[in-house]
């Protein structure tokens, strides 16, 4: 008897451990996100400190002055005026980003993964001693450059080489003599994996600003005994109105804040879904665990009741256990999160090649508070129903085996249906987009459908899991396993529901993703009339016209023999419409007459006139016009990056298609108001019988001077679209992995309980001749049935959800077809089955090792 209860306690501890694991995963991802953000933030702060070393005061243009068009410049005299009393050194800032050297070996542009590619002007030694010459000398005349050692390594260049460098603003590549290699103070090759090209100052000014003798800002160093604040106050009055002075420290803070904002978004979007999935799945796991624990302790609880404990005391004792599990889980989760954050910070910088200075580990208060709050709340919430159930154990149960048959599933199923049916209706409502409640209705609907199906799943267990069982339950042991899975529909359903969550998410995402891919493939091939397509990989930000290829390059393409027509598309998203910042529209301008554009993109006119696009006119797709309430003939005020606001008149609309949606086409002259003059896409139509390969090769050659620009056929365009989908799906698949992991623990949990409960049965089966392997197969089959059942429920809900979402996207012409990726879904089922096998390994081993005699012996 003692042995039995000890064993019970032990297995309970084990089971609680599984609940703890669920909490650890959830809180781990949650706190990990914050630790990662803080740690990376600290490293960035350190980076800015080292960049701004010795800088007491920094002069930059004010925010307002850079808002509209060309930023203001400081003249030589204005910089000289800053040499006030207490200023040890003054240096005008000549710098630009997007200066891209080409690799000496293969001729490809040297690119970084997100870190800037900086160009600067120098006049000799750096008065702030941030950079110093390590080899060769400073550039002293036009046509000479020095580069950082990191850049030299990347470009495989050495002093004396002729280095090709792409220059922004002039938008062309030129060759320079490499006269020096520089390093940062402390003999560092780079600050954070950026490239650096230094020109003679006057040449840099000519290239970056279009004239010599001007600066974009200035740096001032302080004499000893003069504080940065004093110096700032001394130089501030000397500045023109468009400039402001701040101390080096203030500058650091401003830069660090901007970076931190981006970082926290990154980690929220990256870790957020993981934390949510882990917590959601964890709720099911914990719920099940406590149910099991309560069931096992029924006798003990009944004894407490018989001895006069009130039901609140009994429920309380269960909840105390829950709080304990929550605290332990949250503590371990927090530790895991700290590890995750630290590893993530190392991994991220390693992956991106961003070489940030180390700054130790930063753990704020927020992740700690959050981990404990979420950990304890989730556990107590999940344990609540089991606790109430525990309190309803009749005292009589202490005296004898009280048969507690499964409650009928009717109430549960009615509640489930009552949730699922209106849920479906709500999803429908949300998708048709009635009123402003679209998103809330959709989310609420999805939640209700999900819960409803979860509640209905016990009812589905017998028919659906039975069907699965018929497929996987081979032989006597297999059939016994299937019977066991069907034995307690509630338990099987709750276990399966944990898996269902993850699979629902992933199936829905897969359906939308597959629909998107199919749509793009169809649309590009049916509507785009070009044979050769030039694209710019927008790796860093939305297009503004600052990356891409020049109009001159496209002119060259037109002259290639075999080219019938060629079209450049200039794109920007940097605009204000009627005084409000643009959220979702893309603004395109084209260098050809509009009929050519119309043919090339296969546009179908809806209203107005698409035969010409004159000054001050624009066209857009039907949905955009409808959505914004624009009628043909309306005047719309649009302010682009430069040149202020001006009125454009809508002259025509065309049918929305998935690739022509949310786009406003402006006349060619609008390009001068874009932030940069570069086209981001080019469409080349070949003449009848032209050699496509030869033309493509020639176009490639012409475009080779422009970093980030690639040349390909239509399928390359499809691939580029698809690559976004693939990245999103890859993240979703990792999510699935996590969900499966947690669900696996749930299955493990359920199996352990079943084995514990059925010890005597197992002994009897062994006594009548079932082999160890047979026992393992029996347990494995039960596990696989549960896993596949959960997976199929998830696929059913997920595909329905994905199809509904796709249908909504078709409604707004974002998609044109629904495609269900059956192969991937079949893969999920297979994965679930394998997970089922994996989850069963240990319980099956335990079951097989049971001593036959111990199992059948009764106390």
């Amino acid at each position, binding site marked *: 008897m003692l042995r039995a209860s000890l064993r019970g306690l032990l297995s309970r501890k084990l089971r609680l451990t599984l609940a703890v694991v669920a909490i650890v995963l959830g809180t781990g991802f949650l706190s990990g996100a914050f630790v990662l953000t803080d740690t990376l933030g600290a490293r960035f702060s350190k980076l800015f400190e080292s960049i701004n070393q010795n800088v007491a005061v920094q002069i930059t243009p004010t925010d307002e002055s850079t808002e509209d068009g060309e930023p203001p410049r400081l003249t030589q005299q204005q910089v000289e005026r800053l040499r006030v009393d207490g200023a040890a050194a003054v240096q005008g800032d000549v710098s630009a980003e997007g200066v891209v050297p080409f690799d000496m070996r293969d001729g490809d542009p040297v690119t970084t993964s997100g870190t800037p590619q900086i160009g600067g002007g120098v006049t000799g030694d750096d008065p702030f001693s941030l950079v110093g010459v390590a080899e060769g000398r400073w550039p002293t005349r036009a046509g000479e450059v020095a580069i950082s050692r990191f850049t030299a390594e990347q470009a495989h260049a050495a002093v004396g080489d002729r280095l090709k460098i792409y220059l922004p603003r002039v938008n062309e590549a030129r060759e320079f003599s490499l006269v020096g290699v520089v390093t940062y103070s402390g003999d560092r090759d780079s600050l954070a994996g950026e490239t650096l090209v230094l020109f003679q100052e006057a040449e840099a000014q000519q290239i970056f600003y279009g004239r010599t003798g001007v600066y974009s800002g200035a740096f001032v160093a302080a004499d000893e005994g003069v504080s940065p604040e004093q110096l700032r106050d001394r130089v501030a009055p000397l500045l023109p109105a468009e400039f402001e002075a701040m101390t080096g420290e203030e500058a650091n803070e401003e830069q660090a804040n901007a970076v931190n904002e981006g970082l926290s978004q990154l980690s929220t979007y990256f870790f957020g879904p993981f934390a949510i999935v882990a917590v959601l799945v964890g709720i099911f796991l914990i719920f099940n665990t406590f149910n099991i624990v309560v069931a096992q302790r029924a006798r003990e609880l009944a004894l407490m009741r018989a001895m006069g404990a009130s039901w609140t005391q009994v429920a309380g004792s269960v909840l105390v256990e829950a709080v304990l599990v929550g605290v332990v889980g949250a503590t371990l989760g927090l530790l895991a999160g700290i590890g995750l954050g630290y590893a993530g910070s190392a991994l991220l910088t390693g992956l991106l090649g961003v070489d940030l200075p180390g700054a130790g580990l930063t753990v704020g208060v927020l992740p700690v508070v959050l981990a404990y709050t979420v950990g304890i709340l989730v556990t107590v919430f999940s344990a609540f129903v089991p606790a109430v159930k525990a309190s309803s154990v009749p005292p009589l149960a202490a005296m004898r085996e009280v048969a507690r048959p499964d409650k009928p599933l009717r109430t549960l199923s009615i509640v489930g249906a009552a949730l699922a049916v209106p849920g479906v209706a709500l999803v429908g409502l949300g998708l048709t987009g009635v009123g402003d409640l679209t998103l809330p209705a959709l989310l609420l609907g999805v939640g209700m459908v999900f819960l409803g199906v979860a509640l209905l799943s016990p009812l589905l267990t017998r028919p659906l899991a039975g069907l699965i069982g018929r497929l996987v339950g081979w032989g006597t042991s297999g059939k016994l396993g299937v019977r066991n899975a069907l034995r307690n529909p509630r338990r099987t359903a709750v276990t399966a529901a944990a898996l269902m969550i993850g699979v629902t998410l992933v199936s829905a995402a897969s359906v939308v993703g597959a629909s998107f891919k199919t749509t793009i493939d169809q649309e590009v091939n049916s509507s785009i009339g070009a044979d050769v397509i030039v694209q710019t990989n927008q790796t860093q930000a939305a297009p503004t016209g600052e990356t891409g290829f020049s109009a001159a390059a496209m002119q060259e393409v037109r002259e290639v023999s075999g080219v019938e027509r060629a079209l450049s598309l200039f794109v920007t998203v940097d605009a204000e419409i009627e005084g409000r910042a643009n959220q979702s529209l893309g603004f395109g301008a084209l260098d050809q007459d509009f009929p050519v554009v119309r043919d090339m993109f296969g546009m179908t006119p809806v209203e107005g006139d698409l035969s010409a696009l004159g000054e001050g006119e624009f066209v857009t797709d039907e949905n955009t016009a409808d959505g914004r309430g624009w009628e043909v003939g309306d005047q719309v005020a649009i302010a682009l990056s430069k040149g202020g606001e001006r009125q454009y008149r809508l002259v025509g609309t065309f049918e929305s298609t998935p690739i022509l949606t949310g786009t406003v086409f402006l006349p060619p002259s609008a390009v001068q108001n874009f932030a940069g003059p570069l086209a981001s896409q080019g469409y080349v139509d070949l003449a009848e019988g032209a050699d496509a390969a030869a033309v493509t090769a020639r176009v490639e050659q012409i475009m080779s001077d422009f970093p980030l620009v690639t040349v390909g056929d239509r399928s390359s365009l499809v691939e580029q679209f698809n690559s976004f989908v693939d990245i999103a799906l890859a993240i979703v698949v990792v999510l699935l992995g996590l969900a499966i992991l947690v669900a696996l623990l749930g299955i493990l949990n359920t199996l352990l309980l079943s084995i514990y409960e059925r010890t005597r049965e197992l002994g009897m089966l062994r006594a009548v001749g079932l082999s160890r392997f047979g026992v393992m197969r029996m347990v494995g089959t039960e596990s696989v049935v549960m896993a596949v059942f959960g997976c199929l429920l998830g696929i059913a809900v997920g595909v329905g959800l994905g199809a509904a979402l796709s249908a909504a996207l078709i409604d707004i012409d974002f998609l044109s077809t629904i495609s269900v990726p059956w192969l991937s879904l079949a893969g999920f089922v297979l994965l679930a089955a394998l997970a089922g096998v994996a989850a069963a390994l240990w319980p099956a081993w335990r079951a097989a090792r049971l001593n036959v005699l111990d199992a*059948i012996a009764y106390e």
Partner: protein
Amino acid sequence: MDATGVAARAADLWKVYGSGEAQVVALRGVNVELERGHFTAIMGPSGSGKSTLMHCLAGLDSVTRGQVYIGDTQVTGLGDRGLTKLRRDKVGFVFQQFNLLPTLTAAENILLPLSIAGRKPDQQWYDTVIDTVNLRDRLGHRPTQLSGGQQQRVACARALVARPEVVFADEPTGNLDSRSGAEVLSFLARSVREYGQTIVMVTHDPNAASHADRVIFLADGQIVDEMRDPTAEAVLDRLKGLDTPAAAVPPVGSER
């Protein structure tokens, strides 16, 4: 079947639990032969080792020393695989309780050992067994829908349907009311008399033992006596002698 042969035997069987101070000797050199086609009952006070003897004979428990044979097969020394095969082919069990799988119908429970072994039932024999236990109208029921006596009859049918060398029954009537118990016992006795089945039963109930052909009395890990064609009264008398502390009755020594 050779009705005069030996279905199972134990030679110099020792079973010791634990070690050192806590050492308990459950069986001390037991020698016994169980005749084929006989119904043998093993009796003795609690702690006499009667259950241990049966478990060792059935290959459910390992022995410390000595040999056990079932038919020609030496049970002692068999690995798990061998034991599994032995249970499939040569042994049937009836336990006191927890005898049936609740997920299976009565018929499925009866056929379970054959199904596990992957053998086809002998339809004629199956029908004979079903009719003998009088369960034909209950075959589609689940154990929870059957009375205790019916459940135990299902268990007996299950043990018999594979025609094992020996059926081991561990207190088969322990959980039953006297009427149901008598039904089960008479059925077991019939299977011995009419079909030549060998049955070994552990029991503490003299009435149950009176159904057997032979009763073996165990005390303190040794066989102290045996009785042929017992009656309930004779068994009870003999047991009363054994129930007094072991010292009062000097061990007679096991028969050779």
